[in-house]
């Protein structure tokens, strides 16, 4: 707990050189005032106090300079690793509906996909058995709660590392680079996140990054249901799940979908008549493996697994998994994103 906070403050000190705003000065004052207090908490093992100050210290802006930076990779055991060993199983929170990422194949009845491969690699490293995993299907907005309530050890579920979340969960280094992109029929006049969306009906998942992006800038697209958030919600333009958008698109009820390109690739793989529009995503996001805040041994261990996972060039486990699941929908990715570590 205290380590995370100390880190945040130091990271902040690093980044203040170029910042001169009054607001930041206030943040400096607040951080500096809280710094000794935080140390005191650390000394006396005040877990909860340390935790709460970690989330109240206004370090978000500073940490967001590099939210993807994670703990250095370490092959050591700790209390959390020990817990998994004792149980003999790794409990992983995954998606069961995300084609090519985490999906239960109805024929083999097994979960498969890029995320699932990674879970197996983590289980193999910690327990020596790639199948020593209990998969728990968790919905998108239960990812953080599942970790906080110890329902799962890790969440490997196309989870974006961002400033808001790093105060809630601990992320590994990035294992995939993604971004929001527009998906539309090949024959559509829509050619990206631009003016071509004007007057078009655009579908997004409720509460998704894509929805927020449209709210910020919609290019005149229609993207809200009349009764959103009420009992009569039509679930037409904003739907419970991103895949529902493809249903509406195929039925001609919407003209385009905005979603994560990684998920969009899963949709494109299910419908040869649609494609990702625009050269590249209009945002950049990184997926990370999430663990409970403070499970540093586990995060370092996952980072260690990821080191191995990335190693080997074109024959690396990462590239093998990429070719198996993602290359069709998301071609042209040369390799995994480089890991970034905190310098401490």
């Amino acid at each position, binding site marked *: 707990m205290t380590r995370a906070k100390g880190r945040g403050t130091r990271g902040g000190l690093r980044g203040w050189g170029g910042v001169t705003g009054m607001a930041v000065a206030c943040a400096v004052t607040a951080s500096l005032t809280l710094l000794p207090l935080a140390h005191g908490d650390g000394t006396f093992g005040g877990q909860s106090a340390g935790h709460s100050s970690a989330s109240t210290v206004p370090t978000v802006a500073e940490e967001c300079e590099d939210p993807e930076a994670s703990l250095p990779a370490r092959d050591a055991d700790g209390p959390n690793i020990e817990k998994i060993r004792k149980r003999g199983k790794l*409990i992983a929170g995954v998606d*069961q*509906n*995300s*084609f090519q990422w985490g*999906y*239960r*194949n*109805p*024929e083999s*009845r097994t979960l498969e996909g890029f995320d699932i491969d990674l879970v197996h690699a983590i289980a193999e490293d910690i327990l020596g058995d790639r199948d020593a995993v*209990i*998969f*728990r*299907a*968790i*919905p998108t*907005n*239960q990812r953080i709660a599942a970790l906080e309530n110890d329902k799962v050890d890790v969440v490997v579920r196309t989870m974006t590392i961002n400033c808001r979340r790093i105060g809630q969960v601990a992320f590994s280094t990035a294992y995939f680079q993604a971004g929001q992109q527009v998906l539309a029929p090949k024959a559509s006049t829509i050619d990206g996140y631009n003016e071509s969306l004007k007057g078009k009906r655009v579908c997004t998942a409720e*509460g998704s990054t894509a929805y927020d992006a449209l709210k910020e800038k919609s290019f005149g697209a229609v993207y809200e249901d009349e009764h959103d*958030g009420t009992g009569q919600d039509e*679930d037409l333009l904003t739907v*419970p*799940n991103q*895949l*529902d958008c*493809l*249903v509406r698109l*195929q039925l001609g009820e919407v003209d385009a979908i905005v979603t994560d390109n990684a998920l969009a690739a*899963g*949709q494109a793989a*299910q*419908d040869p008549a649609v494609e990702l529009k625009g050269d590249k995503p209009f945002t950049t996001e990184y997926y990370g493996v999430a663990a409970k805040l403070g499970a540093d041994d586990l995060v370092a261990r996952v980072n260690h697994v990821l080191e191995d996972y990335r190693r080997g060039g074109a024959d690396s486990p990462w590239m093998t998994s990429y070719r198996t699941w993602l290359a069709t929908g998301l071609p042209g990715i040369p390799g995994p994103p480089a890991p970034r570590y905190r310098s401490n």
Partner: protein
Amino acid sequence: MTYPPSGTAPREPGPGRPSAPVTVPAQRRGVGAEAAARLRAAATTEPGRLQIYGAVLALLVVVFGAVTYLEIAARASSADDVVTRSQPLSADAASIYRSLADADTMAASGFLAGAQEPSEVLARYDADIEEASRLLVDAAASTDPATASHKEITTLSRLLPVYTGLVERARANNRQGLPLGGAYLRYANQKMTGELLPAAERLYTAETGRLATDSADARRFPFLSLGAGIVALGALVWMQRRNYRRTNRVFNHGLLAATAAATVVLLWLAVGHTVARAELRGAMAHGQESLDVLNKARINSLKARANENLTLVARGAVLTPDGTRDQYETDYGTGMKELGAQLEEARELADDARGSKPVKDAIDGVSTWQDRHRKARTTDDRGDYDSALQQVIGPEGSTGESFERVDDALERALAHEQDEFDTAAQDGRGALGGLPFGAAALAVLGAVAVIVGVNRRLSEYR
């Protein structure tokens, strides 16, 4: 009846009146005035009085017969509507409702079984859709286009192909192993629970309401007939008493026969309608009320089953608006709670062992179902999807088995209550059978007897 004697009519119109349109008021006034004058003259002599009293008596008896005929014919027609029209329509609406809910449940069950859907599940789905389409066509034919029911039928006819289209898309995608299939199935379910089932429910409510109205119409007390009967009988008694006073003769055969006829009609009317009322009320109280509760219970069991299946199809993809619980699991819980309450109500309504036995079976089935469901949820939450799936759709010891048991029991209970309703309602309709014509015939006989009886007295003056 009001034609004047032939030959008088052309002379009637006054000189100032246009002669071409023979105006009715002119005739009436003429006839009325003439009759009044004759009456005044007749009322001064005993034979004249007898003639007037005889005519009035005969008229009262005929009026009694006519009113009884009209009033009871209307009651009998309402009773007939109950048996042949509104109850069957209400039962059909319930069948449409049930078929649709069952189809949705089967679609989800088949989907969960994997790419190759079990043939019996497919067959049941097909039968449900066929039944619903057939009944919708029937219902459309027997419903007035201006009614709300017809609007619901139109809505259902329009949405049913949309629904089946979505289910077929879901199957095609599922067959290819694509998760899109699950999304289509959920969309189909959304259409079903959000649009089709509410329309079917409204149709059912409207038809059941019509049944209640028809039954109430049939049971309405025949005040006019009874009143007319009492007046006619009273008049007959008064006439005979007057006769006795004046002539010291105890019996006048004609009047006695008329009194007997009127008494028979009055008793027949009172007893017949009372029996019909009792039977029809019994049909509603013991049959229809139970049918209504059981129908609703069955729909809830079907919805709960569909939601249980969809929990496994959606795999946590759809949450309650507050984002804390699985939407389908929550809906399952709500449905089961309502089902439990309705079964409890059905058990209280059941009035014999044959009726309460299947309801008890259903209650037991629901309790096992809920136990098994809890276990299946625990298994799924533990991450063991395959075992959870078996616990839900497996052939033995699954929640599916419990659901079938509940569904079978409810079907038996419904058949029993439908029987009870039919028997009682038919008895009720039967109790009124023949009464209108009998009343009319007896009244005519009575009137003739009055005239014969009075003429006998009159002949004594010649």
